[in-house]
């Protein structure tokens, strides 16, 4: 079959370019916007997923990892004596103010432990030794902090909670959904810096199970000994933190709205250019009808044009979005586009373009072939 739809579409190169650009724009918008959201969501659970803790003990009804409430640090002893627990340690998560050279003040999320190595925190180190944290008034800061805190070097000093601390190293990928940069410091140092609030208190207890221990029975026993705390497996705790941001804050809704608006832009552009092009070629559609073509012959032409616009626009849009990934990571933003999500956008683009072509089809289906005899 002669591909009238395709040939007519590319015959007018300017219009073809506009159509494809419109689709590509919508695709890039959706991929980048949702990809950034997925990237942020990834931050909301990254410390949970990267740490080697099998169980997280939190104070009752803690909403997500970034919003801890403190409880007695002595509870860890009760946990350590539970059969099946290989190791249990306190983890403090707190917010401290940092005075910047510019005079401004920003907050950092502090993860404080006695033994970082055991818990695989921090999980990626760019510079420095995590063992040094115990040796003085030191802390490590994530490289992503440069966005908020201005540029800094290992060896610099910063005023944290009115205390001069030296930056002894830098980490990678340690970002919080709250967008506050993450830093790491010694457990005792953190307690002494916020003593009225943290003395004798911890935010979490991290638990590593002994080999072969049954998760459910260990969890049950811990829960029995600590009735006023919650005990989560790593996956449950990650899901809880993740869902808090998606559901409770309405950010998920916001993201759906972006997708919807992106699709709307795409549909409008495609419908508009396809419709204008159809109107310009109305005499040709009349000719198809005059020589005996049916409405399905006509729809085939329009659907073909819409699918080509969808395929070309999606490909270019995807390439654009993929091109944004390294640019985003330069400013420490993550663009995450999982395969199933990309596939959904591809299918969505096709559906969007085909529905846009229905507008043209309605018009052409009703034209009178006698228009080809008019001069």
């Amino acid at each position, binding site marked *: 079959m*002669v591909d009238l739809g395709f040939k007519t579409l*590319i015959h007018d190169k300017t219009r073809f370019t506009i159509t494809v650009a419109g689709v590509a724009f919508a695709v890039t918008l959706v991929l980048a916007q949702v990809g950034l959201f997925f990237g942020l969501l990834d931050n909301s659970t990254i410390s949970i997923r990267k740490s080697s803790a099998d169980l997280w003990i939190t104070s009752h009804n803690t909403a997500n990892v970034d919003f801890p409430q403190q409880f007695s640090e002595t509870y860890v002893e009760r946990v350590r004596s539970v059969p099946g627990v290989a190791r249990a340690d306190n983890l403090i998560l707190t917010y401290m103010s940092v005075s910047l050279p510019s005079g401004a003040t920003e907050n950092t999320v502090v993860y404080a432990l006695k033994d970082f190595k055991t818990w695989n925190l921090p999980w990626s180190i760019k510079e420095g030794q995590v063992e040094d944290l115990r040796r003085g008034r030191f802390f490590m800061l994530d490289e992503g902090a440069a966005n908020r805190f201005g540029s800094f070097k290992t060896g610099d000093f910063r005023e944290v909670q009115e205390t001069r601390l030296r930056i002894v190293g830098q980490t990678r990928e340690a970002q919080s959904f709250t967008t506050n940069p993450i830093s790491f410091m010694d457990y005792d140092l953190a307690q002494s810096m916020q003593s009225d609030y943290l003395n004798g208190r911890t935010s979490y207890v991290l638990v590593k199970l002994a080999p072969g221990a049954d998760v459910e029975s260990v969890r049950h026993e811990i829960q029995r000994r600590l009735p006023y705390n919650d005990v989560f497996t790593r996956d449950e705790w990650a899901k809880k933190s993740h869902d808090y941001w998606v559901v409770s804050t309405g950010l998920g809704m916001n993201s759906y709205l972006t997708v919807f608006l992106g699709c709307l832009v795409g549909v409008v552009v495609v419908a508009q250019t396809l419709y204008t092009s159809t109107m310009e070629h109305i005499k040709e559609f009349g000719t198809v009808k*005059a*020589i*005996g*073509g*049916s409405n399905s012959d006509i729809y085939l032409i329009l659907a073909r044009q819409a699918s080509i616009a969808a395929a070309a626009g999606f490909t270019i849009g995807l390439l654009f979005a993929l091109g944004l990934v390294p640019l985003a990571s330069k400013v420490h933003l993550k663009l995450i586009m999982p395969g199933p999500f990309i596939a959904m956008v591809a299918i969505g683009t096709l559906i969007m373009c085909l529905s846009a072509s229905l507008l043209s089809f309605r018009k052409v289906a009703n034209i009178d*072939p006698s228009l080809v*005899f008019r001069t």
Partner: protein
Amino acid sequence: MTILKGDSIFKSFQDGKIETQVLHGVSLDLARGEVVILEGPSGSGKTTLLQILGCIMSPTKGTIEINGRPVAASRSRELASIRKKNLGFVFQQFNLFPALTVLENVEYALNIKGIDGKEARRQAQGLVDAVELTNRANYLPRDLSGGQKQRVAIARAMAGKPPVILADEPTANLDTQVGAQILALFNDLAKRENRGLLIVTHDPKVRTIADRVIQIRDGFIHAA
């Protein structure tokens, strides 16, 4: 043998409250291998009659028979199917597909008529050869002269071997000499392939190839 027959055809157009009566009981027939010229001044109802005979529009009153069968249908889908099997059209303005080459213009018409693939390509090539455009087969319409365009249109009208070819003012946009060549080609193809050919025109030079000339004036037929 009569292939196309129109009997007592009336047509009026309703334009708001005003009703214009365009055809007043016109009868006309066409046989296989016959070339009939329908002559008349501008506005006399020629194009309207051609569209009714060509199943593009329905008459207000009167009957059409193609190949001995009455055209009872009035639904656009059934009319399209009758056109597909029985009719080929040549238009005053050529109406070629600008994005398709000469060969593809003919091949696409074959596709519409249900002939596909290699066979369509072969038949299209044969038709392009028959209208002497072999060395222009891969040209786009914009690179052709008016006469060449009309040759493509004739090849396209022949696609699928319809028994009836209807042409509306096929020489009106061509200069005299080119018009004469086109008419010779038309005549040749109609006779050789035994098609019925009805040419509508207000150009008296077209009568040179006619087996029969019919005059129409203000919607009435006058035998010539």
